[in-house]
């Protein structure tokens, strides 16, 4: 297991470096000069040159990258062009908020997805299977923002049961799991969870059926094992595939959360990112991308390790 861990880490390191490189280069690839966004339109050539020196943009690219990476590693991601606050402080708040949404949506997606998939797989081709499959098919087909807007219309506008925007009362002690805050979480969590939940359920259904079709299931019956123990065997066989897909889905959920957070004005990284794009706030954009993509890399690593724990065959592959 330790050897596997080290091997996975060795794979991940170059990916992480690649990610930082791409995020760094983004500023240079993005159309428009970052300097022109800071300076007034009628700035003189001297002022531009001065600003370039000040921001280190006159140095060769590799040096700029080195400096940028060194600073980023220490949490110095620059200052937001729009708000004037440090990117780090904007990010830390947004990350916390996204984390709350992601945990709620992730739990919802995993628990409901695995449960629905299991029910459908066990009820294979019977009514329970058809009903859940219909539901999950709808889940994978409907776009995030569409569901988000629909939820707002039905549960916040037409029937004012839940708040449509924000994440609850702004108090100095931050977010707390009380009703005042939780009621804001419900709709965004459902909108974020729907697609991953449906994909997880469909994968789980397929893996349960695949496991049930294997010869060893007959052996379980021949051994006289009780239904609970047999189910545990089937689950352990179905889980590795489902885990892999779950990891990817949780990653994709970050993408979905950009839209969902924007619709619900949930002040997380997605909201931050969307605003940074519209306002051409490059330091914020860069910092958010960096954090999100590194998180994605770490998430994939975690899924790999979890999967290898669940399926011993992967460890040796």
């Amino acid at each position, binding site marked *: 297991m330790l050897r596997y861990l080290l091997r996975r880490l060795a794979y991940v390191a170059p990916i992480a470096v690649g990610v930082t490189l791409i995020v760094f280069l983004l500023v240079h690839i993005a159309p428009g000069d970052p300097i022109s966004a800071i300076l007034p339109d009628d700035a003189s050539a001297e002022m531009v040159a001065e600003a370039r020196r000040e921001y280190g943009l006159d140095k060769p690219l590799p040096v700029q990258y080195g400096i940028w990476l060194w600073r980023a590693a220490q949490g110095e991601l620059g200052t937001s062009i729009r708000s004037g606050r440090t990117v780090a402080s904007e990010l830390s708040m947004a990350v916390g908020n996204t984390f709350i949404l992601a945990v709620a949506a992730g739990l919802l997606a995993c628990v409901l997805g695995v449960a629905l998939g299991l029910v459908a797989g066990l009820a294979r081709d019977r009514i329970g299977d058809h009903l859940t499959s219909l539901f999950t098919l709808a889940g994978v087909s409907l776009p995030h923002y569409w569901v988000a807007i629909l939820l707002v219309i039905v549960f916040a506008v037409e029937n004012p049961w839940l708040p449509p925007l924000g994440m609850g009362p702004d108090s100095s002690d931050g977010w707390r799991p009380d009703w005042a805050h939780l009621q804001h979480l419900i709709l965004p969590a459902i909108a974020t969870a729907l697609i991953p939940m449906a994909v997880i359920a469909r994968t789980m259904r397929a893996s349960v059926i695949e496991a049930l079709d294997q010869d060893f299931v*007959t052996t379980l019956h021949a051994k006289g094992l009780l239904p609970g123990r047999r189910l545990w065997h089937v689950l352990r066989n179905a889980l590795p595939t489902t885990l892999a897909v779950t990891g990817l889905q949780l990653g994709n959920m970050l993408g979905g959360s950009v839209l969902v957070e924007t619709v619900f004005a949930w002040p997380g990284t997605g909201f931050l990112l969307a605003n940074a794009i519209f306002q051409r706030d490059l330091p914020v954009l860069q910092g958010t991308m960096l954090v999100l993509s590194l998180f994605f890399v770490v998430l994939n690593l975690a899924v790999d390790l979890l999967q290898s724990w669940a399926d011993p065959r992967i460890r040796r592959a």
Partner: protein
Amino acid sequence: MSVALEVSGLEVAYRSARGFVPVVRGVDLTLAKGRVLALLGESGSGKSVTLRSVVGLTAREGARVSGRVRVLGQDVLAMDARRQLDLRGSQVGFVFQEPMTALDPVFRVGDQIAEVLVRHRGATWAEGMARARALFDLVQIPAAAQRLRAYPSELSGGLRQRAMIAIALACEPPLLLADEPTTALDATVQIQVLLLLRDLQKQLGTAVVFVTHDLGVAAEIADEVAVMYAGRIVERGSAEQVLLAPEHPYTRALLGCVVRGGYAEAPLVELAGSPPDLARLPPGCSFAPRCVSAFAPCGVEEPGEREREAGHRARCHLGR
């Protein structure tokens, strides 16, 4: 009661596009405790289905099963599902043909043995593992402690099949059902596993039904032999009776196939043609289209089972 297994009028049919197709068509078998029965026959003759039906494993495949099966005096097909589960693994052990796919790939081998003892003997996991260790010694798996923690894919085919045998024998069942337990193994390993099974059978006094294609194997281990054709037992008796003095033309043809392997030119009975389509069997004797001895009544009337000598029965019109 000295009878381990008693099957009478067992019929099994599977659903197909054209309705239920009979696959086992009235099988009768009797096996005394501590004896070994070899069940012979071509591919598709219904050997595996018969064996699985004995412990009620075909009903969950959607098969229609009727007739009577008594294991140690208990009527298996009349039992509820829970009592069948109590019987399987504890009173009847089962060894499958493919040791690779018959074991759960994501569970350690030791756990797959221990869980049987936890289930049927009320053992704790620690006790189950200790017993699994002893069973590994019994089935002669070297480096037992380390192999108990292995996953099936980390073991060779021969070791996997030994582990499967350890699972089947964990509760020392009076009856063991083995469905071609050596067919999937390399030739040298086949012999080792066969000898192991024979020794364990003697040592534990287990009654065994052993399905095989291989007449040499049957001659090696069986006290009794039953030959299946198209879902019926066409001949049964002691190993000597059936293998040395076969009555049924099909058994003779099977034996002929073996002998011809050694003597290319020996003019023995030929087994021509292919196994019958169970969905549309010919009238009369199902073997008639391939039988070299077929005569007038064969295409009209189905032969009943008749006793030739004490205990030696065949289903054939010949010698009436």
